[in-house]
């Protein structure tokens, strides 16, 4: 039985997990600009092409932020795969960002 399941599992084509992220910012405010730059650097280094990032400006779309229960900005939310999680601030702490992405810096290249 166990062998059968193993075979069936092997027949399934490999699936690439795409992480969906949403970053809430306040226009061109300093921490928001830093958050975008930090997040893009982290995604390019650790996720390569395996992510989707949506940037929401709360000054332009305040109702969207309220309906998503965002209280402060910058705020990063992971929307896909696993438990929803978020990081507050300018995302200069790479470890916190990797933690919500479900990645550990020590295991990565």
């Amino acid at each position, binding site marked *: 039985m166990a062998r059968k399941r193993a075979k069936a599992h092997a027949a399934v084509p490999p699936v690439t997990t795409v992480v969906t992220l949403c970053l809430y*910012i*306040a*226009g*061109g*405010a*300093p*921490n*928001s600009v830093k958050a975008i730059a930090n997040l893009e650097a982290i995604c390019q280094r650790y996720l390569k092409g395996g992510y989707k990032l949506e940037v929401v400006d*709360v*000054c*332009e779309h*305040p*109702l969207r*932020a*309220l309906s998503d229960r*965002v*209280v*402060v*900005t*910058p705020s990063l939310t992971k929307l896909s795969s696993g438990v929803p999680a978020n*990081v*507050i*601030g*300018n995302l*200069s702490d790479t470890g916190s960002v990797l933690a919500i992405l479900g990645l550990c810096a020590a295991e990565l290249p």
Partner: protein
Amino acid sequence: MSLEAHQTVPTPSASEAESAFKEWLRRLVRGTAELRAFDAGEIDAVMDPSSGNAILLHPARVALQRSSRLLLNAVDALPCEICVLDSDGTVVMTNQAWRAYVSAHAGRGLAVRDGLNVFAACSQVPPGERASAAAVAAGLRLVLNGKSELVRCEYVHGSPRGQRSFTLAIAGVRTDGSLHAILTREHVSEGASPRLAVRADRADAKRIPATGLADVPNRLLAALPSSQRARLLDGLESVTLHYGEVLNEPGEAIRHVHFPSDCLVSLLTVVEGHRALEVGLVGPEGLVGSRLALGLNTSPIRALVQGTGTALRMTAARFLQELQRNTELRAAVLRFADSLMGQISRTPACNRFHMIEARLARWLLMTRERMPSAQFRLTQEFLADMLGVRRVSVTSAAGALQRRKLIHYRRGIITILDQKGLEAASCSRYRHVRLAAMALT
């Protein structure tokens, strides 16, 4: 307590306000991460559930105001004239250069001030500007109705120094759901004679996408290896150039390079108080703007379209990038620049020592070489400008060539009847230029 210490310690009211804000934030948030980020100064805004708005924190508000001021100062510092219109066509912002233009040309050339409506201004222009203004109004409607993202209109108006023409670029920009139009003036030509003014029928002129370089008519591009040629495709766009259009003015920065496909561009020296004199001719064998390859970003001469047709053009910035990574292109452009310098350097001697008849024959042959047909439209007045002589001298020289059955000239249409005979009649400059051109290919 010293004055310095007073300045660094928050006043009681500021401290109280911060405490009250933090208390309010504590009631709003679920966890402590928000408060930690607040204490670390990493928060820009807090959402206020009662008003439904984002409240910017003081440092963020100050930074945004500073960047807005910087942006406005940067727009003011730009040398090109910029005017922003709202969706009704009313001027909501102008830069320093535009305001200076308004002061210098009050009432002429759509010199509209802040708060005025451009549609209203278009209907109140002097009689000589009505056709141009109508074209601008039509183009502006296209942009503000969202039917076109970019429209270019030619505008001709009177000025104390004669006729003045420019291209008005109207671009649409959508911000916060509303559509604005940005007006910029390009290719301003001061003191151009009326016959050199660009036609005002190009209100709907749009950029034509470059379709491909497989059959590119420009010989300099066509001679590049196909792999390098394909890389250029991305940065090239096809444009239609009209008779009389000015691509570069002396002293102005080169914004685009043009690779003529089936049009001709004259290079003219402009001496104050005198008529412009042609010193070079560029057609499908080369490009206009080759000085960029020499590390020079301004043009000392006027580049004037004298044969309507199409060209491929590239922004100066992109062209410089391509020159750095495309060695074949750089070599080809430098070879062409060298041949052009040879062409220009022989002009003074040609004008000083050669008969007008020989110079006219040379000029007709150079034009023929760059045009697909042996018949082209040239007025005697235009030829007089190109050769730097009086019109009566052109009439006499053209008559002499016609009597020798080398050309046929009637009502501005010149037909070359005997190419070899015309070569024999031409001055030696043509043979030098031809040899140089042959060396390029």
